[in-house]
Every structure is written in structure tokens, then in C-alpha cells.
């Protein structure tokens, strides 16, 4: 008996040791490709003068003001638009629910450039660049954040507490305000913080829809660093942006006051509740129209040339017509696929090492430390990361500045936090008794890990690979910094096409964006 007990304890200890040793690799990766580049830009280029300059420059002050108010307005609109469908999906079961959730969350895994292209194809010509388009694109892109975060919390609120309030005389509105809202408030505020972060650091959307008038801090960092070579101002803006994001995320971090004893509750099927049915259906149709219409318009626009139906835009993608403007679609596609494959090959093993270190650790503070350390790139703008990499890896012995491999490194660093999130939770949820059973049946610690842990997380590993591929295929911020002639990816090519005048070029941009949507949907549905 004692022998068995010791063997079981030894299994976890062996797994823990192995996981800790293997986590050195991802830790080193983050130090080299995240901590070092960011530390480098601050130590080399940060100066008080640059700060004084940006605050004294009326042009930059205008950018700061615009960044702030558009982010606040986008966040408020996203919450308003997301609320009905979040309520419907949290409280009710209905036919086609998975499709609606999938549709509402799909834009989030698409590159912002594509979402912006879809919005541009939808709005009338005179509104195609400006604040309306920016807000529309931000809402579509961030809908997923609110739906996912808030509905996860709302499903945990016991439905009988709301029913109890109704039996005590509270109207539906009073019940929501006095009972439901206190239970979901923390999730709503947390989601709002994340949406604000994405809108505050918006790059792809502003590049496509902002026109010459509108620029966010993120776009200004790019413009200062790449077009003006003014690294000092760019770095000061990076720091300013980081400070604002840290404050907002700190203020809106979810607090789990009532989370301890709460579980996910079964939803009622809407067909049994005729009174609420109309509201649920209205929410569903409105969301499908709101999210789906721009992508339909984009697809249709790819077949419109000089106000007539034509498949020429699709043909021109591959017949060499676009070579004259320096666009090689086939090359961009092969680049994107190679980069995505390498990103998957590097990121998934790194994330698995970290997920094991986190899951097998007996200390919650180690888990928290890993989550914060690995999660930091999520809160850092991709443009800042690109800037850091470009000024760090530009001298011997690692002069990768113009090497395509640096792009892959950036994609891996950006994908790693998301990959870790996908793998850590299922690993943590494996009951220790399963490993104990395997050990009592004669399996060694390595066999136990292979036959139990690895077998159970097979599906999350596939999802993780799909997510890493989607991140790499769609990454635009850091890629804009690091891409060189011949290294263009699909998103940068779409941006180039849509940034040029001319019907053929624009329609080709929509055709490539449509093709890319199909590619991403294909990748994610296989995962």
C-alpha cells in the first residue's frame, strides 16, 4: 500500500520536474523575443524630451484624443450591440445556437484588415473612410469578446435567483438591475477593459478605414518609426500606450466575488417560452444581419467591376496583372502558409511545455506568475513588438532585420499566450486519480503522461494548432513592421491592394480578402 502511494506521489513529482525543466525553453523564447526587444527600445530610445515633445505637439495631442474617444465609444457600442445576443445565448437554448455563436465570434479570429475590408465594402462610398466605418468594424471585431466572457459568467448565475426576484414582485427590468447585473457586472467590466484595449491599440482597421484624417497611437507609432525614422517619439508613444492599457486592465480586472460556489446551469429551450421567443429571435436575426452582411457585401464586391458583374478580379489575383503594382498574390499566399506552418510547429510545443509546468505546479502563485509572464504580449501592441524586434535584431551576431524568420518569431510570441490558454485549462482539469490508476496498472511516469494527459488533450492540441495558424495567417501589426520585399503576407497584400485607387485593384483586394476568409474558416473548422 505504502509502495503504491509512494509511486503515485513520484509520478506527479516526476511530471512536475520534467515540466519545469522543459519550461526553460519557452521562458528563454519570451526573454529573447519579448522582454529583450521591449527592454531594448526603452533603454535605447526613451527620453524625457521625447515625452515633453509628444505632449507639446498638437498633432500628436489630436491623435491621443482621437484614440481615447474612439476607443471609449467603440467599447460602449460593442457592449450595447452584444447585449441582446449575449442574453439570448446565456439564458436560452435555441435551434442554430452554435451557428449564431460561431458567426458572432468568427470575426475575432479574422485579421482586422479583413473586417475593415468587409465594412468598407458595405458602407456607401462617402462613408467608406471615417469614424462610422471605424466604429462599425470595431464593434464587429470585438463582439466575440463580450459574448464569450459575459455569457460564460451569465450561464453561472442561477436562473432561480432571477425567478425568486420575480416571485417577490420585481419586474423583469428590476430583476435584471437588482439581481442579475450584480452577478455579471464584473465580467461585463472585464470584457469592456479588453475591448477598450483592442480598440485603443487598433491598427489594421484604422489603416484601412481611417483615411488621412484619422490616426491612433498605434498608427502614429508606425508612421513615426517607419516613415519619419523618429524612433524616440515612437518609443515614447509605445510607453504611453502601455501605461494607459495597464491602468485600464488593472481597473477592469474581473473580481470573482460570487464565483466560489457557482456552476453552469442548464438553459431552458426557448420554444417552451412563447413570451420570450420573439425577443430571442429578434436578437438572433439582428446579430446575424449585423455580422454577416459586411462579409456578404465583401464577397459580392469582389464580383463587381466598373458597376458590372465580373470574375476578372478573381482571375487577376493569379494571372500576373497585379505584378505591375508590385503585388504577387501567389507569393503572399505561400509566404503566409509557410509562416503559419512554422508558427504552429514552434508555438504548440512551447505552449505545451508551459501548460504542463502550470498544470502540474502545486503552487497557485507559480500558475499566476506563468499566466502573467506569458500573457504580457497579449497586452502589448503588436506594432510595439515589431518595433522592438527591428531595433534589437539589427546587428551582428543576430542581424535578422530583413530575414523572414523574424516574422515567424513575432507570430510565435503573439500566439504563445493564446496557445497556453487553450492547453492549460484542460490539463489542469485532469483528475489525479486517472494518473494514479495508470500507475497502479504498471505504467511508468512517461507512459502515464503519454497515455493519459496527452491522450486527453489531443483535441485542445488541435484547437491550439488551428488558433496559432489563424494568428499567424492574420497578424498585421508586427508584420507591417517586419515585412520586407518578397516577404509580404496575405493581410499586408490586402492592405496594399485596398490602399490603392482603381476598380480592378480594389475588387482584387475584396477577392483576396474573401479567399482568405474561406482559408481561415477551413483551418479553424479542421481544428
Amino acid at each position, binding site marked *: 500500500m505504502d509502495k503504491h502511494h509512494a509511486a503515485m506521489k513520484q509520478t506527479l513529482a516526476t511530471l512536475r520536474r520534467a515540466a519545469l525543466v522543459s519550461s526553460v525553453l519557452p521562458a528563454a523564447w519570451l526573454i529573447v523575443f519579448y522582454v529583450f526587444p521591449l527592454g531594448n527600445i526603452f533603454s535605447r530610445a526613451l527620453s524625457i524630451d521625447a515625452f515633453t515633445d509628444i505632449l507639446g505637439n498638437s498633432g500628436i495631442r489630436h491623435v491621443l484624443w482621437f484614440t481615447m474617444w474612439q476607443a471609449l465609444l467603440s467599447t460602449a457600442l460593442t457592449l450595447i450591440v452584444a447585449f441582446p445576443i449575449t442574453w439570448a445565448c446565456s439564458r436560452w437554448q435555441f435551434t442554430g445556437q452554435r451557428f449564431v455563436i460561431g458567426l458572432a465570434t468568427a470575426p475575432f479570429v479574422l485579421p482586422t484588415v479583413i473586417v475593415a475590408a468587409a465594412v468598407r465594402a458595405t458602407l456607401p462610398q462617402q462613408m467608406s473612410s471615417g469614424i462610422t466605418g471605424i466604429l462599425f468594424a470595431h464593434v464587429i471585431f470585438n463582439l466575440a469578446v463580450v459574448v464569450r466572457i459575459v455569457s460564460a459568467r451569465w450561464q453561472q448565475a442561477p436562473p*432561480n435567483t432571477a425567478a425568486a426576484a420575480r*416571485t417577490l*414582485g420585481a419586474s423583469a427590468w428590476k430583476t435584471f438591475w437588482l439581481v442579475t447585473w450584480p*452577478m455579471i457586472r464584473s465580467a461585463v467590466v472585464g470584457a469592456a477593459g479588453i475591448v477598450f484595449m483592442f480598440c485603443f491599440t487598433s491598427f489594421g482597421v484604422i489603416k484601412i478605414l481611417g483615411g488621412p484624417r484619422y490616426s491612433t497611437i498605434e498608427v502614429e507609432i508606425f508612421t513615426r518609426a517607419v516613415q519619419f525614422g523618429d524612433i524616440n517619439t515612437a518609443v515614447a508613444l509605445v510607453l504611453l500606450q502601455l501605461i494607459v492599457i495597464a491602468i485600464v486592465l488593472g481597473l477592469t480586472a474581473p473580481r470573482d466575488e*460570487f464565483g466560489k*460556489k457557482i456552476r453552469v446551469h442548464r438553459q431552458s429551450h426557448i420554444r417552451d417560452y412563447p413570451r420570450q421567443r420573439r425577443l430571442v429571435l429578434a436578437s438572433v436575426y439582428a446579430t446575424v444581419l449585423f455580422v454577416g452582411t459586411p462579409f456578404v457585401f465583401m464577397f459580392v464586391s469582389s464580383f463587381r467591376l466598373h458597376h458590372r458583374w465580373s470574375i476578372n478580379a478573381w482571375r487577376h489575383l493569379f494571372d500576373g496583372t497585379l505584378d505591375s503594382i508590385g503585388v504577387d498574390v501567389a507569393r503572399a499566399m505561400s509566404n503566409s502558409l509557410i509562416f503559419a506552418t512554422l508558427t504552429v510547429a514552434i508555438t504548440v510545443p512551447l505552449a505545451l511545455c508551459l501548460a504542463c509546468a502550470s498544470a502540474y505546479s502545486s503552487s497557485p502563485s507559480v500558475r499566476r506568475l506563468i499566466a502573467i509572464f506569458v500573457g504580457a504580449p497579449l497586452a502589448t501592441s503588436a506594432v510595439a513588438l515589431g518595433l522592438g524586434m527591428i531595433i534589437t535584431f539589427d546587428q551582428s551576431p543576430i542581424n535578422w532585420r530583413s530575414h523572414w524568420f523574424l516574422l515567424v518569431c513575432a507570430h510565435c510570441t503573439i500566439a504563445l499566450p493564446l496557445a497556453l490558454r487553450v492547453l492549460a485549462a484542460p490539463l489542469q482539469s485532469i483528475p489525479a486519480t486517472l494518473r494514479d490508476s495508470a500507475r497502479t496498472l504498471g505504467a511508468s511516469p512517461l507512459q502515464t503522461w503519454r497515455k493519459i494527459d496527452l491522450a486527453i488533450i489531443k483535441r485542445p492540441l488541435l484547437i491550439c494548432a488551428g488558433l496559432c495558424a489563424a494568428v499567424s495567417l492574420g497578424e498585421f501589426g508586427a508584420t507591417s513592421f517586419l515585412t520586407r520585399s518578397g516577404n509580404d503576407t496575405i493581410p499586408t497584400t490586402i492592405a496594399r491592394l485596398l490602399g490603392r485607387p482603381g476598380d480592378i485593384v480594389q475588387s482584387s483586394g475584396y477577392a483576396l480578402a474573401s479567399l482568405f476568409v474561406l482559408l481561415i474558416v477551413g483551418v479553424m473548422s479542421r481544428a
Partner: protein
Amino acid sequence: MLDVHNICVVLGGTPIVQDFSLQIPTGTTTALVGPSGSGKTTILHAICGITPVTSGSVSYDGRDITNTPIHQRKIGMVFQDSDLFPHLTVWHNIAFGLAFVTPRLGARAVAERVQELLALVGMETFGDRRIDDLSGGEQRRVALARALAPWPHLLLLDEPFSALDSALRLRLIADIGDILSATRTTALIVTHDPAEAEILATRTVSISSPSTT
């Protein structure tokens, strides 16, 4: 008097309750006894309006309340898991329903009513406690006080003694019996234990699956 006439409840295409009828005279306590899955909870939910009835009617004192919104029925309910509001203290849980009583009560009247109910359930000193800090039995008492607070016409109790240890269960059965007779509340108690029904109720109605009488 509560008059439930031939109600049917179909959920997810499955009939849960079929042609169920029941009458409860004012001031009496009726127990609804039946095995798990026989639709007892669904009947309570249909009476108070949480679950819509597919056919049949529910009336109180001759008034048809089948389509009356839940919050206008004046039917109190004690849920199986108590389902107290976790973000409110005991005091505020009990006071919750008093905010919707017409004519509107003043702050002093609310305080007096809450104190009266705290005393009724033997928890005079618990007003400031958080719900998380209460034991299972204490939570049931608060749930009962909360449901009684706005003077409901009818009180529904869904398995109020489930998941309690036997000593606590016996004490709570006696206490709730005393409270119901002291307040002369018309009540319908759902239980699967015939012994509980015998102690608490003046009349017992047995149902089988799916529910009919």
C-alpha cells in the same frame, strides 16, 4: 382558494405534467408527494408563472391568473436550493420583496417587517450576515422569511428539507410547521417524503409520473 384546473406542461416536446388538477383552500397547507421526476417542481413553477402552462388554467380566489406575469401573482416561493441573492446580506434579502409592495412602505415599516421575520425564523442577530456565511439550515430559514415578507397570497415550498442532515431536518420541519400555522399562510409543499408531508400538511396529494391526479 387556489384552483389548478387540468394543466398540461410540455417542455422540449416532452409532456412533463398532464391534466393535473388541485384545489387548496385558503389558510391550509397541502403537500404534494411523488417520486423524483414526476413533475412536482414543474407544477410549482407553473403555478407561480416561471414555466408557462401549455393548456389548463390556474386561478386564485376565482381570478384567472394563468397569463398574469409572475411578479403580479403575489405567490411566494422557497426554492430547492434556497437561491438567496449572494450579493445581498440576510437583511436585504428579506427586505427585497418589500420594495415592490403597494402601497409603498416607508423605511421604518420595512425595518419592522424584516425584524419581525428575522424573529419568526429565530435569526434576530443575523441581519448583517453575508449569505456565504450561513449554514444550509440557516439559508432555508432566510429563504422562508424572504418569501413570507411581502405577504403573499400563497406560499410554494419546493423540497425545503432536501440535502439537510436528519437532526437539522427534524428541527426545521417543526419550525416551518409552526411558522405556517402562526401566519395562517396558504401553502403548497413539494416533497418526496410522505413522513414530512404527514407532519406539515393538512392534506396530502400523491402524484405519479407524468403528473396527473
